[in-house]
């Protein structure tokens, strides 16, 4: 930085012909600026380092536990065997949760963009409800389903866990659908109206296909979130689910990956006996990271398509 030295810093009569150099106050301001920029850069390094440390830790511990048998055999006892039953259980529970949350979420998004005016009372109330729901601790959602389903049924089931997960997913799907649907160019709707196309045909044939990439992104992110959610399953699905594959979510507790990790941790006595938990954590983390990266790519592509 170089400017004319100000009179307070220099001599009484500045030498206007001399070389321009920073001095006094300006030098201090530049120094403060460098300090702040270095601090912010350091913060970014710390943020990325946190991710790298956790992921590297899971990968280095988990990769050793991982082999073909680990993902294809059922759990034996608490610490032995593999995680096939837990993998299938997570797939069952999360699929069921998605089957509940994704359609309701998309329909809610459609209601907000296609039927309720953006400033209408019902739209504002609904958005508020979704935001509040999203801000709730998952343990509270878990207890709600415990009171609603587990207490009357007198047993913990995979279904109860799935419903709890669907409540965690619903605001994510609804708000992201609404976001994307509101980005669909208005002229597409107007063109459909001008052709005399009924609204539901326009939604099915024009609006939803245009927004599909973005809606799918929201759904994938919500599924990735649900796959790792633990509190709703701990309370509503059983921690002591059986070691055999459970395809029926209504019968009994369904074993899942988060419950498997928690179980191994609770029962392990040496660090070597934790290897199963590391392996399961590795599989879960890879699924979640890949889903997130995939969702990002999908979003970027659909944004490009919609010209936004």
């Amino acid at each position, binding site marked *: 930085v170089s400017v004319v030295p100000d009179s307070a810093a220099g001599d009484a009569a500045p030498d206007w012909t001399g070389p321009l150099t920073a001095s006094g106050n300006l030098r201090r301001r530049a120094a*403060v600026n460098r300090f702040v920029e270095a601090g912010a850069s350091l913060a970014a390094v710390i*943020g990325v380092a946190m991710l790298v440390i*956790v992921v590297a830790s*899971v990968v280095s511990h988990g990769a050793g536990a991982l082999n073909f048998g680990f993902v294809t055999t059922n759990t034996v006892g608490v610490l032995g065997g593999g995680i096939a039953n837990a993998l299938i259980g997570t797939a069952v529970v999360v699929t069921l949760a998605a089957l509940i949350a994704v359609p*309701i979420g998309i329909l809610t998004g459609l*209601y907000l963009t296609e039927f309720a005016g953006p400033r209408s009372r019902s739209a504002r109330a609904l958005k508020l409800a979704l935001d509040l729901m999203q*801000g709730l601790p998952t343990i509270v959602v878990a207890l709600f389903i415990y009171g609603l389903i587990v207490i009357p049924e007198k047993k913990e089931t995979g279904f109860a866990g799935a419903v709890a997960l669907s409540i965690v997913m619903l*605001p994510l799907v609804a708000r*992201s659908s609404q976001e994307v649907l509101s980005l669909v160019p208005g002229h597409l709707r107007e063109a459909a109206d001008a052709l005399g196309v009924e609204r539901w045909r326009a939604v099915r044939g024009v609006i939803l296909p245009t927004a599909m990439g973005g809606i799918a992104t929201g759904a994938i992110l919500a599924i990735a979130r649900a796959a790792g959610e633990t509190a709703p399953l701990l309370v509503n699905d059983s921690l002591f689910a059986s070691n055999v594959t459970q395809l029926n979510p209504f019968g009994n507790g369904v074993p899942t990956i988060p419950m498997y990790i928690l179980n191994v941790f609770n029962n392990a006595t040496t660090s070597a006996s934790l290897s199963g938990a590391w392996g399961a954590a590795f599989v879960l983390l890879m699924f979640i990271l890949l889903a997130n990266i995939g969702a990002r790519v999908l979003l970027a592509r659909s944004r490009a398509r919609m010209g936004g």
Partner: protein
Amino acid sequence: LPGRARGGPHAGTGDRVLFGLCALASLLAGLTLAGIVYQVITHANPAISRFGLGFVGHTTWAPNFGVFGAGALIYGTLMSSLLALFLAAPLGIAIALYLSMIAPPGVRAVVGPLVELLAAIPSIIIGFWGVVVFAPFLQKHVEPALHSALGFIPLFGPPQTTGLSLFTAGLVLTLMVLPIIASLSRELFLTVPQELKDGAEALGATRWEVIRGVVLATTAPGVAAATLLGLGRALGEAIAVLLVAGELTQIHASLFQPGATMASLIATQFQNPVNSLHLASMFYIALLLLVIGLATSLLARLIAGRFDVQRTLAR
């Protein structure tokens, strides 16, 4: 047009069906929130009528003696969450400033998504890593250093053997709150009009002066709201804290002692309630968490004003 779309008299069957489905789904979403409040209050009722509001201040939690008070849990929740906020807020805002103002575009495109990926790691994995890797590290290296440097403050007492403590819980929560505050703040900083920043720079402001005088000044309410949403996340986190805090329902001055939070206690003890009052007391704690969760969201909305902070959270 709206009349037709809403399923008015001239609407076709298809439009009416679609409107009905959408309205039903929206109603269900709204009813869910009401249902949550209703269920939690109903099941907490025995504990509410037994203990009243004194539950909040009473610090003994002894299920086997039928004595239930949330005081120690509220203390643990506040200490761990405030520690997390104390670390994550400055760090997150600094990251957001780096990503929106300082980093070259190529770096932004890489670092931004990486920081957001941190938010995707599930709490069970962060907690598991926290208890197996992070807690022993803190216990061996960080806690002794803090104790010898700041030991005159009761918060930094002598380290315990396991490393399971409210301190560890606070640091693990930092990890979980940081990406929320960072990505929300970055979105806010990107909304500051370029003309304002250009104007300040044309007046000779350094980048820090632009940040302080323009960027932070115009987005301060939004940043406060983002921080509050981060706090809400920390207050309600159950699983990660359950693993690293040590689950001791007592108040100790030192952060290096084990503790428990409201959410983590429910997650620990819900499997085996000793009696119905124990269960009701846990629902009472859930009610407190519910009130706190709703209050932080509403307050964040109120502070944020024109910034729709929660909108960016949903992405």
